[in-house]
């Protein structure tokens, strides 16, 4: 089979997966709208606190309220689409330690992709919508602005996914790493929602290296407000690098996968 045919086949498979996820979510419509709506409101609460803060200090290290709002837009929006389309990315640890990879491994599609695309998070719809609403409110609505915001969403979503997958893959090596994986996920998400310029020295170095949350939290400035080609290139390289590491760890981990006898159901 040629690469192009393979790619088209995988795309059709992904589209069917997403269609089924959505249909599955719609089975419980009330729950769907409540969860999505609650997450939307939850994100607004955070912005409300930031607005109180900026009511006292107009500018903090070059950041004003609209930058922080765009940071939330790009962070929540990126997390939102990743969790909508690849909703199992923060459940790798329990899936591995619970021996639930068997069905994915017995089928021919790429295992990690198949696992990731097999779930849609309902709350994530609220996150994604929140990101779009904030962009509509304070973002740059020119074509360039829209493209840069889209690029920001892609970078933040893929980077959040990649770091979380790496945390989840620990399960192949240390047994149930659900707790550690959750810690990695939550800390990374929290760190990516604070303006990167409030950190200094070692903390800042960490945010732009092994905990690459800085490449998300600087997006409103380095990508969208004052386009910095070097930062953007670094952000793309780091995102692809972490994604590559995540995929590598996952596939190496499969050799150590020990399955299990837990009863597993899909969807």
């Amino acid at each position: 089979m040629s690469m192009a045919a393979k790619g088209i086949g995988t795309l059709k498979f992904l589209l069917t997966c997403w269609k089924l996820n959505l249909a599955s979510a719609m089975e419980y419509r009330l729950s769907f709208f409540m969860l999505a709506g609650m997450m939307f409101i939850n994100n607004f609460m955070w912005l409300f606190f930031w607005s109180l803060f900026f009511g006292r200090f107009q500018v903090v290290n070059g950041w004003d309220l609209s930058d922080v709002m765009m940071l939330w837009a790009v962070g929540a929006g990126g997390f939102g689409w990743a969790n909508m389309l690849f909703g199992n990315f923060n459940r790798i640890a329990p899936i591995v330690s619970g021996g639930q990879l068997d069905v994915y491994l017995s089928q021919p599609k790429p295992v990690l992709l198949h696992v990731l695309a097999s779930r849609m998070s309902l709350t994530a719809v609220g996150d994604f919508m929140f990101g779009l609403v904030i962009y509509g409110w304070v973002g740059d609505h020119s074509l360039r602005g829209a493209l840069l915001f889209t690029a920001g969403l892609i970078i933040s979503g893929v980077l959040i996914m990649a770091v979380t997958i790496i945390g989840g893959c620990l399960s192949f090596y240390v047994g149930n790493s659900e707790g550690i994986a959750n810690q990695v996920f939550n800390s990374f998400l929290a760190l990516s929602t604070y303006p990167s310029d409030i950190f200094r020295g070692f903390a800042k170095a960490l945010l732009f290296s092994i905990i690459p949350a800085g490449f998300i939290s600087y997006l409103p400035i380095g990508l969208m407000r004052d386009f910095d080609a070097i930062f953007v290139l670094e952000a793309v390289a780091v995102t692809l690098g972490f994604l590559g590491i995540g995929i590598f760890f996952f596939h190496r981990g499969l050799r150590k996968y020990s399955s299990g006898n837990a009863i597993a159901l899909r969807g």
Partner: protein
Amino acid sequence: MTMVALQTHALSKIFTVKQKRAGLTGSIRSLIKPQWEEKIAVKGIDLTVQRGEMVAFLGPNGAGKSTTIKMLTGILHPSSGEAQVLGLTPWRERAKLAYRIGAVFGQKSQLWYHLPPIDTFDLISRIYELDRSEYAARRNDLIERFELGPYLNIPVRKLSLGERMRCEIAVSFLHRPQLLFLDEPTIGLDVVVKQRIRELIREVNKEEGTTVFLTSHDAGDVEELCSRAVVIHHGGILLDAPVDRLKREVLSRKIISLTLASGFDPTMLPSQVGTEVLKVEGRRVKIAVDLQQTDIEAVLGSLIGRFRLEDVTVEDPPMEEIITHIYGSGGG
């Protein structure tokens, strides 16, 4: 094309299991100084299965059946040994192999839980990249053959276990696998559904030449479905024989369980050769029948003539008893 469907040589799997003593102290001790123990799940299995064969892979719980099947489908990497399935090494060429085999794990569903089975059919057709018109024809054939019409649009969560298993097996046939692995397909099902599922598997094997490799701890699956049985115990092969021989030598006993309408009077039991009372508990009685000395019909006939019965079931002896019997007679 080679006639061998699968072949293994000294296939082994060892799991490293953490040992933990009971209670909180045990947990703390295990945290500071963990103790690991090697558990041999599969011990050097040599096996060859020809194309079109229906092989039952039997053994009690924990014998290594599922681990073997998981290595043969590429889910687990073995600790040592070799295997070729349809000419491919499962754990190295997993994706390539997956297009040509099917797998049903009784305890791991591939059906979308909240959606009707028809949606899973659609997804599976995309996973195996089936041509649309070919898919529609095959799906309709399977729906008819497995009589899935009434359940097709009901969410899987609302189906009974038997209905779900029929859907599971039908879905696994969608891409016309050359080799089908069935891991405990009849687990937890009632006698009627078990029987129907066995018939359907037999039908597809006959019509499409699908090789079937079935693990079970239900002796009935062997008798009714397979021509050959491989019994494993403690990770190694204990017996590899035609089912006819197994029936003659090992499955020669049946257990009759009776619930009587009134109390049990042992003097009323027929003094029939080849019968043995195993257990009496109030109005419940278990009798073993040796089929080499008498037949079930005769024993049932004389029981019905002597007692008023509320319920009666005829079962195969449990797998543990079969294993003990094989051990006693010196293996295969």
